[in-house]
């Protein structure tokens, strides 16, 4: 692999985190669209006040500007803010249903529960065995009705609506979401699966995923967002909040297969308590544009997190992943590897930061981003960063942008392997280190299919 080593370290300008206020964008959303206010429903006062509060923040926050550090490489001026409508019942009836193949288990042979969130509503299945364990795995609306106390415990604890315009938008307007709660000490044997299905053109989708794994509990959870490609822009804004309690363990597999007309914005964060363990797999294949913030807060001593990301862009896709590993307690470990390949005129941005707080001694942080650029019109930006305030730590990082080596290609061709297959082998080989970290056949297969589809 011909690799160009990028060793630039950019110290991120510490801002107050709040974008400069300006009149709210020209989105056509109104306060009446807040789900807990709609239909005159007597929702829990907690959800209602949370969404109302978020709406206020949404109104006061400006759209992100290219002058802001986090948005410097992702220009959203072409976002047709005024064009998005909510998928009401009438519209929903005309939209395609989720294809069966997307509901097949991605992890293991079956699943213990599945939630399908679509414009037509939520469909929830959970095995009796798991329900008996006291596990709650349900959609947001049901959670508000049946588990208000759990919702109160988990909602808005890890991601704050005020973190950005799109976070506030999702917090205020998300009618579709998931609450997964695993009680103390419970091990869920079978994986749980949710699918957010968002078909159609000119629509706006909001999602809110809440995971609370209580102390000593353990679960594998797969969440996918998907839609078929359509012609007009569609918007998605989402929040993912993950809480991993003391000594608890969460394997979170996340797959983004949005249609290539979707402008996708998400704020995601995991919070790890003492001795907690997180294995986060993050696959990004779809959307026209993505700006994603994924953070890991290692708050408890001895907590460990691993994040394995892969992306493959083609056409005019633009995926921007902003990752942050925050070591906030001593003896914490993080290991992040993001690998991506780029075809056509597509573009990727990865901006990573390891932050070590002053008293987070004896921490071990690793971050790497590797890119394989397959077309001369594609471009990958890779910006690692370290911000270390403790003195007894081990932090390493690496970033590379390379292209297919002609000698490698010739070698494979000389064995009778045609050009496209030779390129596919090299690309698969490039992703192998990340696939090795994903012990789930279904996820690997899905990714391999994407490689075959996207490779020119």
């Amino acid at each position, binding site marked *: *692999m011909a690799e160009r080593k990028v060793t630039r370290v950019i110290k991120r300008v510490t801002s107050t985190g709040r974008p400069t206020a300006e009149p709210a964008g020209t989105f056509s959303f109104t306060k009446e669209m807040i789900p807990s206010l709609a239909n005159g429903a007597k929702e829990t006062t907690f959800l209602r006040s949370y969404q109302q509060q978020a709406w206020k923040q949404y109104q006061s926050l400006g759209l992100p500007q290219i002058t802001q550090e986090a948005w410097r490489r992702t220009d959203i001026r072409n976002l047709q803010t005024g064009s998005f409508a909510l998928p009401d019942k009438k519209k929903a009836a005309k939209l395609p249903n989720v294809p069966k193949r997307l509901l097949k288990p991605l992890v293991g042979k079956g699943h213990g529960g599945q939630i399908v969130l679509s414009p037509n509503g939520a469909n929830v299945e959970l095995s009796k065995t798991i329900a008996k364990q006291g596990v709650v795995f349900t959609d947001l609306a049901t959670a508000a009705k049946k588990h208000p106390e759990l919702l109160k415990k988990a909602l808005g604890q890890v991601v704050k609506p005020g973190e950005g315009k799109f976070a506030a938008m999702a917090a205020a307007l998300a009618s579709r979401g998931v609450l997964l709660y695993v009680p103390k000490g419970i091990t869920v044997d079978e994986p749980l699966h949710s699918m957010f299905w968002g078909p159609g053109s000119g629509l706006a989708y909001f999602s809110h995923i809440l995971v609370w794994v209580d102390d000593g509990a353990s679960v594998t959870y797969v969440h996918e967002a998907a839609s078929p490609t359509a012609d007009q822009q569609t918007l998605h804004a989402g929040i993912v909040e993950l809480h991993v309690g003391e000594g608890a363990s969460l394997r979170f597999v996340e797959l983004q297969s949005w249609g290539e007309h979707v402008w996708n914005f998400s704020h995601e964060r995991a919070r790890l308590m003492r001795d907690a363990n997180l294995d986060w797999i993050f696959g990004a294949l779809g959307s026209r544009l993505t700006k994603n913030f994924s953070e890991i807060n290692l708050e408890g001593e001895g907590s460990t997190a691993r994040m394995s990301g892969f992306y493959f862009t083609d056409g005019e896709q633009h995926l921007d992943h902003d990752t942050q590993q925050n070591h906030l307690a001593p003896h914490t470990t993080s290991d992040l590897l993001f690998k991506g390949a780029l075809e056509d005129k597509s573009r990727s941005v990865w901006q990573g930061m390891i932050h070590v707080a002053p008293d987070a001694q004896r921490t071990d942080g690793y971050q790497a981003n590797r890119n394989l650029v397959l077309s001369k019109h594609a471009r990958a930006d890779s910006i690692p960063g370290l911000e270390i305030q403790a003195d007894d730590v081990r932090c390493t990082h690496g970033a590379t942008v390379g292209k297919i080596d002609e000698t490698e290609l*010739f070698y494979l*061709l*000389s064995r*009778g*392997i045609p050009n496209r*297959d*030779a390129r596919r*082998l090299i690309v698969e080989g490039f992703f*192998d280190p990340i696939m090795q970290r994903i012990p789930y056949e279904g996820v690997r297969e899905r990714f391999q299919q994407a490689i075959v589809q996207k490779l020119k």
Partner: protein
Amino acid sequence: MSELVIHELRVNVGGNEILKGLDLTIEQGRVHALMGPNGSGKTTLAYTLMGHPGYEVTSGEVLFKGQNILDLDPAERSHLGLFLAFQYPVAIPGVSIANFLRTAINSHRKAKDPEDKGLPIPEFRKLLKEKMDLLKMDHSFAGRYLNEGFSGGEKKRAEILQMATLNPEIAILDETDSGLDIDALRNVAEGVEALRGPNFGALVITHYQRILNYVKPDVVHIMLNGKIAETGGPDLALKLEEKGYDWIREKQDEKVTA
């Protein structure tokens, strides 16, 4: 019986003419040795025959099975039965030998029959084990990433394994002996000998006579300055070992001045 006929081949590399009207014929069933000092154009010949894009053919032709193979891309040349064992095999990270070889075999099958569904995995495993046993290789080799972190000897044995699996009609071995200790050399040579037969022709490119103790050539060619300067029997290699290249150079100069 197919033969590879190289006729008046001229090749430029980076604007310099390296092959200067080379003539050579390699037949199935015979092993040819090609010797020559550094810079005489041996590797250029090997790469050109396989179709490396960095080598520019300015004139001449290479005929194999009734076609001028210079018009074909490297994969098509391979499908026709040509093989090059690289002097410096290339590492392909993340691609196992087994995966790579299965892809190569299936590509060959598909080239012959576009409807082919590929060699079933159990049959492929059996074939690979057979070939590995033939070359006295540990079966765990199949799971390793192609040439990644291989020792010099392992790389060359992997080349021979690929050759044995793809079963070419004409193989070019580009300095397969260089950098090997005597045990590795013997091992590699045995691998070549095992393939020897009426359907296998080879061009063994080497600096040194010693591999020819194990792979006995039928014909020996000496290459100087982009051309074949001398052709003879196995004893030519011994004479070269003894006397060096100068006497051939002198002979060539005489030819030029005459």
